[in-house]
């Protein structure tokens, strides 16, 4: 099958993770991974981002598939259930808004900048070596630390489930994937159609 330019977006995904080790402010670029899928889902009513442009999915595919870092087992039934998928989406949202709240507190001067990246919503990893000051408000950096934590956490989860199950197991419970599918359902209805024989 002929490769397209977007098949190389895993490089962008890898570069994003790497840049966060040098300057945390690059974490802002990750917003593209939030807004582009939503824009495609709302404007076109498709999951075009997941289907074509998701660099993380490609990276997991590469590591778990071509590099053989996946056991390639079936994901447990409960992990693909709607209860888990929607539950994880809600949990993800709650944690995301908590991160936004922390950013707000720094902007409001009620809290100092925390130069840590919170991994798996629990472990506060010192990350001061990737912060070299900013010409903007400290809140801008606080958002970067928080958002990079979100991105790194989801990557770690993706890598764990890649190793345990199939390479792109993350896609099953990815909050963006679940959310864009919900948008598509709201936009397109639920027209189950007969498969052609």
């Amino acid at each position, binding site marked *: *099958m002929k490769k397209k330019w977007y098949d190389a977006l895993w490089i962008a995904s890898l570069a994003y993770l790497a840049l966060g080790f040098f300057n945390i402010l690059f974490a802002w670029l990750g917003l593209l991974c939030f807004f582009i899928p939503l824009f495609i*889902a709302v404007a076109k*009513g*498709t*999951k*075009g981002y*997941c*289907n*074509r442009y998701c660099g993380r*999915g490609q990276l997991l*595919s590469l590591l778990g598939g071509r590099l053989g870092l996946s056991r*390639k087992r*079936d*994901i447990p039934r409960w992990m*693909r259930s709607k209860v888990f*998928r929607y539950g994880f989406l809600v949990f993800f949202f709650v944690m995301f808004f908590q991160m936004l709240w922390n950013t707000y507190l720094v902007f409001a001067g009620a809290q100092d900048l925390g130069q840590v990246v919170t991994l798996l919503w629990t472990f506060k990893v010192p990350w001061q070596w990737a912060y070299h000051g900013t010409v903007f408000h400290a809140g801008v950096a606080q958002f970067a630390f928080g958002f990079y934590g979100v991105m790194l956490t989801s990557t770690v989860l993706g890598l764990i489930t890649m190793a345990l*199950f*199939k*390479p*792109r*197991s*993350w*896609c*099953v419970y990815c909050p963006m*994937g*679940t959310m*864009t*599918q919900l*948008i*598509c*359902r709201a936009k*397109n209805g*639920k*027209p*189950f*159609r007969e*498969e*052609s*024989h």
Partner: protein
Amino acid sequence: MAQERKKRRACVSQGECVACGCCVKVCPVGALEVFRGLYASVSGDRCVGCGRCAGECPASVIGMQEETV
């Protein structure tokens, strides 16, 4: 008399499909598409029953069925 022939083809559990499109990428004959961001759909005419989509599907919701044609 026409001879009965068995054909293997992919079958998606549409209600459980997460519409990630992994199956579309690996199908060698382009028999799959993601329908309106909702679920993967198989074109039975094109499907050659190789099973690559079933192996790739991260949610394991694609099965192979034998049909008489």
